[in-house]
């Protein structure tokens, strides 16, 4: 069975790679559109994020850090003190803050004891960008504290001043926290957001074509001819599924490599990016198979694919950055939005694979569930 599955997948791949329209949809269109949109946003794009600073430690060091942060910011990032550190989650949920950096109780003591500073971040799942900024702030503060502590210990050993005073002094002014806005506001960095978004939009069409080829081949007569050979229907369906998966992964990986190596768009941890690509392609392939399986005709499947692709693209945030309100919530109900939130986590927050596993697992669940239903429907419809 696996031999014929491979033969069918290989034939489909060969035909896909020869098809210039697929090359245009898979590579040229997403990159060109991402470039155009990126240029449109250009340096004029700015964030509009309010980060809360919650001081649950109330130590001299944490108080100094909070003072330093609150009132600083700029370029669309504002810091504001959170009145009650115990109600941070409610404050985020109510929309008072887009995300909150929490300095936990014991932070000051830990720093003085020579332990690594650990700050927490509370963010809304619907706003991964703000959460990413808050994580960057927390990381910056932690790094700053570590540097200040090392410096203070050295100064103390030299008899200059005591450690606490030295650290307090180091964090008295707004710390040199590098909020990597450059990750999201440069033309080419904006591309790290728009390129995968556009690639996923076009993947619906490319993968949809591949899924519909099962129905098209039945009409064309090649599918009955294949089934007249010693080939099981399961092999045919697995072969076609493998074909659309490989075409999808290849095309999106190519967009990633071209925008990364050619245009400097950093999508983040390569392993994480590749896993998210595979998960996103799985979800899109599953949805395409489901549409093909339940549509009455090839034309109906084509029309439905277009509608679903555009709906998911709009709702998933493919065409805009920094959505708020309902649009922001809707994102996470679409494979596009889930994948984009993972890509933002990888690029803006520099998360690793572990950080995007929730989105990856959801995408895989969507893909496997819809593909199973679609393949069963196709088996009954096409092969009966």
């Amino acid at each position, binding site marked *: 069975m696996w031999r*014929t599955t491979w*033969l069918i997948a290989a*034939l489909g791949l*060969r*035909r896909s790679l*020869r*098809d210039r329209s697929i090359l245009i949809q898979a590579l040229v269109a997403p990159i060109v559109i991402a470039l155009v949109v990126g240029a449109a946003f250009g340096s004029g794009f700015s964030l509009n994020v309010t980060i809360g600073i919650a001081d649950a430690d109330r130590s001299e060091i944490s108080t100094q850090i909070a003072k330093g942060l609150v009132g600083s910011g700029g370029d669309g990032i504002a810091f504001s003190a959170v009145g009650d550190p115990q109600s941070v989650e409610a404050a985020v949920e109510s929309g008072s803050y887009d995300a909150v950096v929490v300095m936990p109780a014991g932070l000051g003591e830990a720093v003085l004891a020579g332990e690594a500073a650990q700050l927490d971040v509370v963010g809304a799942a619907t706003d991964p960008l703000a959460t990413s900024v808050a994580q960057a702030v927390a990381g910056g503060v932690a790094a700053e504290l570590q540097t200040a502590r090392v410096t203070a210990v050295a100064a103390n050993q030299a008899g200059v001043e005591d450690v606490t005073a030295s650290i307090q002094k180091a964090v008295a002014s707004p710390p040199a926290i590098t909020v990597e806005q450059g990750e999201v506001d440069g033309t080419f960095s904006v591309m790290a957001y728009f390129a995968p978004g556009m690639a996923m939009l076009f993947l619906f069409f490319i993968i949809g074509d591949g899924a519909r080829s099962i129905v098209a081949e039945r009409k*064309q*007569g*090649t599918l*009955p*001819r*294949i*089934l*007249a*050979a*010693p*080939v*099981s229907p399961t092999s045919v369906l697995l072969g076609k599924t493998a074909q659309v998966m490989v075409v999808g992964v290849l095309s999106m990986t190519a967009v990633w490599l071209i925008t990364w190596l050619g245009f400097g768009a950093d999508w983040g941890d390569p392993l994480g990016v590749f896993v998210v690509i595979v998960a996103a392609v799985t979800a899109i392939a599953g949805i395409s198979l489901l549409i093909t399986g339940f549509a009455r005709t090839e034309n109906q499947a084509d029309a439905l694919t277009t509608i679903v692709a555009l709906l998911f693209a709009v709702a998933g945030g493919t065409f805009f950055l920094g959505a708020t309100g309902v649009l922001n919530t809707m994102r996470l109900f679409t494979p596009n939005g889930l994948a984009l939130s993972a890509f933002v986590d990888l690029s803006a927050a520099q998360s690793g694979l572990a950080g995007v596993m929730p989105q990856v697992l959801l995408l895989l669940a969507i893909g496997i569930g819809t593909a199973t239903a679609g393949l069963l429907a196709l088996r009954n419809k096409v092969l009966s």
Partner: protein
Amino acid sequence: MDRPVLQVEQLVRRFGEHTAVDKVSFTIRTGETYGLLGPNGAGKTTTISVIAGLLRADEGTVTLLGEPVTPARKSLIGLVPQDIALYPDLSAIENLQFFGSLQNLNGKALSARVAEVLDVVGLADRAKDRIETYSGGMKRRANIAVGLLHEPRLLILDEPTVGVDPQSRNSILEAVAELGGSGMAVLYTTHYMEEAERLCDRIGIIDQGRLIAEGSRDELVQGLGEKATVSFRVAGGREDIEAWRADLERLPEVNAVQDVESGLSVVAANGPGLIAPAVQFAQANRLEVTGVDVVQPDLEAVFLDLTGKALRD
């Protein structure tokens, strides 16, 4: 006598309320070319789809060399579908290599068979060209080549000459005749009487899903007995011709009447004996008989006699 390559017994296939194939039975032996002759929609393609394992039978059995058609035994069959079932964006070689691989051919054996069948169908010089660049006749020949690739025991050809120019048609018929002569069992469906007469050792006449007659061409024609087809050409109005037709159909010796250009064709038990009363009826209906032909009995007459309608209807 050796066991038949194909044995179909009491085959029934329904689509909802419609019975497309109704208790069809026939056998084909090694080296025999069997024709399923019938008009479009008679059930020919459904019958071969069941034989090839593409459709399930609702009733009846199909055996190949005495055993049921299992997925593994499908390689005993070579199917040449009515439509061009090839990938237009691939060359003939690529199509043949793909379908040959599905039949478990590979390596040098596959390459050798691909070259052989391309030679058989006369496409060796265009083998590397994409199918979409071929003429209709060339596509038909490439379509046949795929069915031959794995040297099946039974070759099924479903109306292989539909839409083909006369030259290619002749070439296809010659190739099929050679295959039958080489010992391969051939099941050939057509609605062209001449093709069935030219190629087939035995012919099954199928109409509305039922096999209504079977035998060699001569046996079927002899079944007409003294019946003959008389073709009348007349001058007159359409209404008068219809009235004349009604008069003819009332004659007890008339089996079937069909329209022909400028007149009617009649199958009658007494053949030439019909001419005198037919002319009298024509004159009574204000028609002038301008010509009369007594046609030699053929499969068209057999079909007309059996079904009351022309094969092309």
